[in-house]
């Protein structure tokens, strides 16, 4: 019916792009991280990275931020998704409003939350206006690491819950209504229907959402740059620093490989924890 080469011809443009702009760069960056100028294998860049005083803080901050943000996003998105599936009217309108942050750049999200947390910002205006504090606080000053962290976490939750919501709503759409109805017939409460029917069947979507969010959380960059500046070192910020301020592309590459390493590790862990037993797929 068609020449056997046709599908491959159709894939060719995208494969060519992938080879030149994905596989080749990856080999190059890995090589950059483990070789010196003469092309010899070296671990010097990694030890320089590990020895730098900011590495530990950047690493811990990135992990803490991920731990603080992702579980809340998953829980919030689950709640939003079940609200949406229970709606008879206005479903599309609410879904649109809740997915608005999907179109917002991380830099813009940082700036948006800056308008709330900066010293003359809206939070201070409300706090002072309602009498909670005497004068405006410097929430984002270097002495207030806690509120910087909180502001960044809130901005991330605000910005990136939408993507989880979209994945989960799409996943809930795949679950046949009959399963829930059957559970209801057998007397399951709404909560039981949710935990015993919806959640287990939603596993594949939860897995996708969680992997994607964790990986992207390790790459948080512009939100932190806008809200924390240099007061909150994170891994991506260090990649940028080493590349541009310290001008050492090798150490920057080592940092990038660390991000890849923890991304792969967490992906495997999530895949194992949320694995679907064989034959239990929809």
């Amino acid at each position: 019916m068609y020449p056997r080469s046709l599908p491959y011809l159709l894939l060719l443009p995208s494969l060519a792009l992938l080879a030149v702009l994905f596989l080749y760069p990856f080999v190059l960056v890995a090589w950059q991280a483990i070789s010196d100028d003469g092309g010899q294998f070296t671990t010097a860049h990694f030890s320089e990275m590990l020895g730098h005083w900011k590495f530990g803080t950047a690493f811990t901050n990135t992990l803490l931020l991920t731990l603080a943000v992702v579980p809340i996003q998953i829980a919030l998105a689950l709640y939003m998704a079940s609200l949406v599936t229970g709606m008879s009217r206005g479903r599309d309108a609410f879904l649109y409003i809740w997915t608005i942050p999907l179109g917002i750049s991380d830099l813009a999200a940082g700036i948006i939350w800056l308008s709330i947390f900066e010293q003359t910002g809206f939070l201070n205006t409300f706090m002072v206006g309602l009498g909670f504090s005497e004068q405006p606080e410097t929430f984002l000053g270097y002495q207030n690491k806690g509120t910087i962290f909180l502001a960044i976490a809130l901005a991330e939750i605000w910005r990136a819950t939408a993507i989880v919501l979209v994945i989960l709503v799409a996943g809930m759409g795949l679950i046949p209504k009959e399963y829930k109805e059957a559970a209801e017939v057998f007397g399951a409460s709404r909560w039981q229907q949710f935990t015993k029917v919806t959640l287990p069947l939603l596993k594949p979507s939860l897995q996708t959402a969680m992997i994607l969010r964790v990986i992207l959380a390790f790459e948080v960059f512009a939100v932190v740059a806008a809200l924390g500046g240099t007061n909150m070192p994170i891994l991506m910020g260090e990649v940028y620093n080493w590349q541009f301020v310290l001008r050492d592309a090798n150490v920057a590459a080592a940092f990038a490989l660390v991000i890849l390493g923890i991304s792969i590790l967490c992906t495997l862990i999530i895949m194992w924890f949320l694995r679907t037993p064989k034959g239990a797929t929809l």
Partner: protein
Amino acid sequence: MTVDGTSKTMLWTFRISTVVLCLWVLVPIYFLLTNTLSSPEEVVAFPKRVWPSFNLESISFFLTFSGVGAAMWNSVLVASVTMVLSIAAGAPAGYALSRFDFKGKSFYRVLILMTRAFPLPLLALPLAVLYIRIGLDDTILGLALLHTMLALPFAVLITFSLFSGIPVELEEAAWTLGCNRFQAFRKVILPLVLPGITASAIFAFVISWNEVFGAAVLTIENRTLPAFLLQGLDQAPLHLKFAGGAVLVIPALIFIFMVRKYLFAMWGIANR
């Protein structure tokens, strides 16, 4: 269901949380717009006005600020090239995935999904080196190629779901009426998928328009708007940041509104 006490409480919890969640999303954007539509003095004044004064000084100051016009134009150019490249490479692949069974199909899908989950610096850093070697450094095309890599998985997945939604019988009917494969595609399939393809192109545009890290790494003179704003974060006065944020947000919001119908099709497919 009977309207007893518990279900009434449920209904109200349901309604209140829906409204609260809407406010949670909308109020921060409102604050940004209020700041943008206030004069530079009002932005740093305390306590702050909660309603915009509709003073256009901040925004006009931003738009006439040296470099902003060029950065916006660069952003539009990069995003347009990204849009064209990702559809040109992604749509044929989406069609192949939906219509043919061939060896290596599942490998290709995994590969495409992997690019989406790949840390951005691993692409951006080596490309910076590669581009200097081949003379693509600090160019529109160079950055657009990186953004194409980010948009490609979405282009492939959304076109795959579009083509899968069109019965192959339609194509077969065209063949029996004397069309060859290409004619059948152009006259029967293309008109049907065009709105969806447009949506996926717009989505590619938004991805490129919003992208910060790669743009900051790969451009120096020819900065796009996000890279320009990032560079100015340390020194720029507040009203400039807010106006810049608003200029970044508003087009993206309009575009996302245009493609909202397709967002779910896209991610529904990505699940499987």
